[in-house]
C-alpha cells in the first residue's frame, strides 16, 4: 500500500495525530459534552439511561459538538432538520441520489422478507407496537428516523436462550419496486445462544432500513449484511447492536450492488466484558456510491472492539466512503480497540474517502489504534506481475482477490465464503470490458 498510517495510542503515549479528536496529553475527557458537565435530558425511548446513557438526546435536543456521543438521536422524524449535505454525517453522500429517502413519506412497498431458519429459531412478523421494537436502537439520522416513522411491520428473529444453531438463519430481502420504502428487522440473540444471521439484500429497491440487533448476556452472534442489489437500488441501512455482558458480536457488511448504498453499523456495549468485530468488504464499480460508517461506543469497561473494512474501486466515478467512529467513554476503563480501513484503487476516476475518528475520554485503556491506507494498483504493480508472465486481467484479479479475501475469510461459513468469492469474481469480470 502506498500510504499507511498506523497508530496505537497507549497510556502515557498520547498521540499527536491531529485527527484523534479530544485526545490530550492526559489522554482524557475532552469531549465538550463532558467537559462542561452537560448531560442532556434523556430520551424517552427504551434506550434512555441504558446503553446510550446520558448521550442521547430526545426531543431534538442535540448538542452541537464534534463528539460522536453528542449526535442527535430520536425516534421522531421531525426532530431532524432537513438535510443540506453539509452535515458531518452526510457530507460525502450525494443526497440527490437518495431518491427521496430523506424527504418523502416512505410509503412504497418494502422489499419482501423470506426467512429460512434452522429449528428452534422463531421468526415473527409483528406490528409497530411490538415491545421488542426500539430495544437496540434509536435513529441517529433523518433517513433512519424516516424509516422508523413509516415502517408498517417488522420481522423479528429470535435465537432462543442457550441454543447453538447448527446452520445459518437466512433472511432474503427482495426488492421489487422503485418507490421509497421503509423496512424494519429485529434480531434477538437470547442469553448464551450462538447463531449466524445472513441478511441478503437483492433486487431493485429504494429503501431505508433499520436493523436492531440485541445480544443478551453471553450470546455469540454473527450478522452478515449482503448488499447485492441491482444497479438501480438505493439503500440506507442503520444497523444498531446492543451488546450484553460478555457477549460476542461479529458483524460483516458486504456491499457490491446498488446505485447508492449507505450502511451505518453501530455497536454499543451495554455491560462490561463484550467483544465486537465489525468487518466490511465493498467493491465499487463505475458510478456506484458505497458508504459505510461504523461506530463503536465503548460505554462500558473491559470491552474489546476491532473494526476492519476493505474496499476496491474501479471505473469512472466509483466512490466509497468509510468513516469509523470509536468513542471510548470516561468510564470505559480497560478498553482495547482498533480500527482500520484499506482501499485499493484499481483505475483512474475513482474516489475513496477514509476517515477514522477516535475519541478517547480515559487514559486507563489497554489500547486504541487506527489505521487507514488507500493504495493504488498502478502500472508498476501491473508491470511486475506481467513481467512474470501473468496476463493483465489475471494480474488485476489476483490483486483484488487477495486483498478482499481477508474479509471473506472472517465469515467462517464455507458456502457463504464461496458465494462471496464468486460475487467478487463477477465484479472483476464486469470491470474487464
Amino acid at each position: 500500500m502506498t500510504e499507511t498510517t498506523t497508530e496505537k495510542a497507549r497510556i502515557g503515549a498520547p498521540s499527536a495525530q491531529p485527527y484523534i479528536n479530544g485526545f490530550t496529553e492526559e489522554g482524557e475527557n475532552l469531549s465538550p459534552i463532558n467537559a462542561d458537565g452537560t448531560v442532556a435530558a434523556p430520551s424517552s425511548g427504551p434506550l434512555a439511561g441504558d446503553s446510550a446513557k446520558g448521550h442521547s438526546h430526545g426531543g431534538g435536543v442535540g448538542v452541537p459538538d464534534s463528539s460522536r456521543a453528542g449526535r442527535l438521536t430520536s425516534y421522531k422524524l421531525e426532530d431532524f432538520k432537513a438535510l443540506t449535505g453539509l452535515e458531518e454525517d452526510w457530507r460525502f453522500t450525494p443526497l440527490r441520489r437518495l431518491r427521496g429517502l430523506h424527504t418523502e413519506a416512505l410509503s412504497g412497498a418494502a422489499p419482501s422478507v423470506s426467512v429460512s431458519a434452522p429449528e428452534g429459531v422463531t421468526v415473527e412478523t409483528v406490528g409497530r407496537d411490538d415491545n421488542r421494537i426500539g430495544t437496540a436502537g434509536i435513529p441517529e439520522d433523518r433517513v433512519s428516523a424516516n424509516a422508523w416513522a413509516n415502517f408498517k411491520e417488522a420481522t423479528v428473529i429470535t435465537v432462543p436462550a442457550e441454543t447453538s444453531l447448527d446452520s445459518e438463519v437466512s433472511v432474503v430481502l427482495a426488492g421489487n419496486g422503485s418507490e421509497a420504502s421503509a423496512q424494519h428487522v429485529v434480531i434477538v440473540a437470547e442469553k448464551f445462544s450462538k447463531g449466524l444471521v445472513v441478511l441478503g439484500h437483492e433486487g431493485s429497491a429504494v429503501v431505508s432500513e433499520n436493523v436492531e440487533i440485541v445480544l443478551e448476556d453471553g450470546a455469540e452472534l454473527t450478522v452478515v449484511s449482503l448488499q447485492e442489489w441491482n444497479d438501480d437500488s438505493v439503500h440506507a441501512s442503520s444497523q444498531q447492536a446492543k451488546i450484553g455482558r460478555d457477549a460476542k458480536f461479529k458483524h460483516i457488511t458486504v456491499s457490491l450492488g446498488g446505485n447508492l448504498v449507505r450502511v451505518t453499523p453501530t455497536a454499543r456495549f451495554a455491560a462490561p466484558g463484550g467483544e465486537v468485530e465489525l468487518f466490511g468488504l465493498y467493491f465499487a464499480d463505475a458510478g456506484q456510491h458505497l458508504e459505510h460508517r461504523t461506530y463503536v461506543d465503548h460505554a462500558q469497561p473491559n470491552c474489546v472492539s476491532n473494526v476492519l473494512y476493505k474496499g476496491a474501486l474501479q471505473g469512472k466515478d466509483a466512490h466509497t466512503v468509510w468513516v469509523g467512529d470509536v468513542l471510548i467513554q470516561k468510564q470505559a476503563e480497560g478498553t482495547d480497540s482498533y480500527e482500520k480501513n484499506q482501499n485499493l484503487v484499481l483505475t483512474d476516476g475513482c474516489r475513496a474517502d477514509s476517515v477514522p475518528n477516535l475519541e478517547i475520554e480515559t487514559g486507563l485503556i489497554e489500547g486504541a489504534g487506527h489505521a487507514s491506507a488507500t493504495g493504488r494498483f498502478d502500472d508498476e504493480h501491473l508491470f511486475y506481475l506481467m513481467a512474470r508472465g501473468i496476463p493483465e486481467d489475471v494480474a488485476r484479479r489476483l490483486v483484488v482477490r487477495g486483498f478482499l479475501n481477508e474479509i471473506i475469510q472472517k465469515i467462517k461459513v464455507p458456502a457463504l465464503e464461496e458465494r462471496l468469492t464468486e460475487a467478487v469474481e463477477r465484479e472483476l469480470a464486469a470491470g474487464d470490458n
Partner: protein
Amino acid sequence: MSTLEIKDLHVSIETEQGTKEILKGVSLTIKTGETHAIMGPNGSGKSTLASTIAGHPRYTVTSGSITLDGEDVLEMSVDERARAGVFLAMQYPVEVPGVTMTNFLRTAKTAIDGEAPALRTWTKDVKAAMQELRIDADFAQRNVNEGFSGGEKKRVEILQLELFKPKFAVLDETDSGLDVDALKVVSEGVNRAHATGNMGTLLITHYTRILRYIKPDFVHVFVDGKVVEEGGPELADRLEEEGYDRYLSGAGAAVAPAVQA
C-alpha cells in the same frame, strides 16, 4: 540453444523537458550458456536496456530490434515476453499489495508453463529453493515484496529465476544493496540456474564484486547509452583497478574502440 539478439537499439523516454534519447544504438547477442556482464556508471542506461527488453511501457524503442530465436520481442506484450522465456530481475522490485508470495509464485508459474504445476512437487520445490536462498519460510504468506528489505527483495527475485527457469535472465544490479553473505547466496542461486545449461545471462552491474562469484564470459562497458568497450573477464579486472574515469574523462579523451567480442 537459444539466441537473444539486440541490434542497434535506440530508446527514448518522455520527460517533462521533452523526449530524451537514452539508448543510442546498442547491439548485443547472447546465447544459451553465456554470461554477459554489462558494466557502466550511474545513469548510463543499463536499467533502461533491461526494462526495454522486458517491455516496460515507459520506454519507447525508436529504432533497432530485439529478437528471441528470430521472433520479434518488441511485438510482444510484457507477459508474452516472460512466457517466451525472458526474465528480468529488477533493480527495484515493486511491492504488490494484496497478493501473497505463494499465490503469486503459483500463478506466475502456471502462466509461464501454460499449466498449473503439480501441487506436491511445486510446494516442495518452492520450499527447497527458499531454503537455499536463506529466505524465511514465513515469507510465503507475506505479500509480494511488501515490507521486504532491499536484500530480501533481491533474494526473492532470484528465487523466481530459479523457479521459473527462463531462457534468458536479465539481472539488473542484483548485487546492489547486498552484504557479502547475501551476495554469495544470491550468486550461488544464479550459478545454479546457469548450471542447468538452459539459460543465458545478462548481468548488469555497477561494481565488479559480483563478478568474483559469477564469472562472465563477456564484459561490455556501457557509457552514455552505448557500448564503448567489449572484452573478456579481464576487462572487468581492469575496471576494478581503473574505474570508469577513462571513459568519462574530458571531451578530448579517446574512447577505446569497441572490440568485437
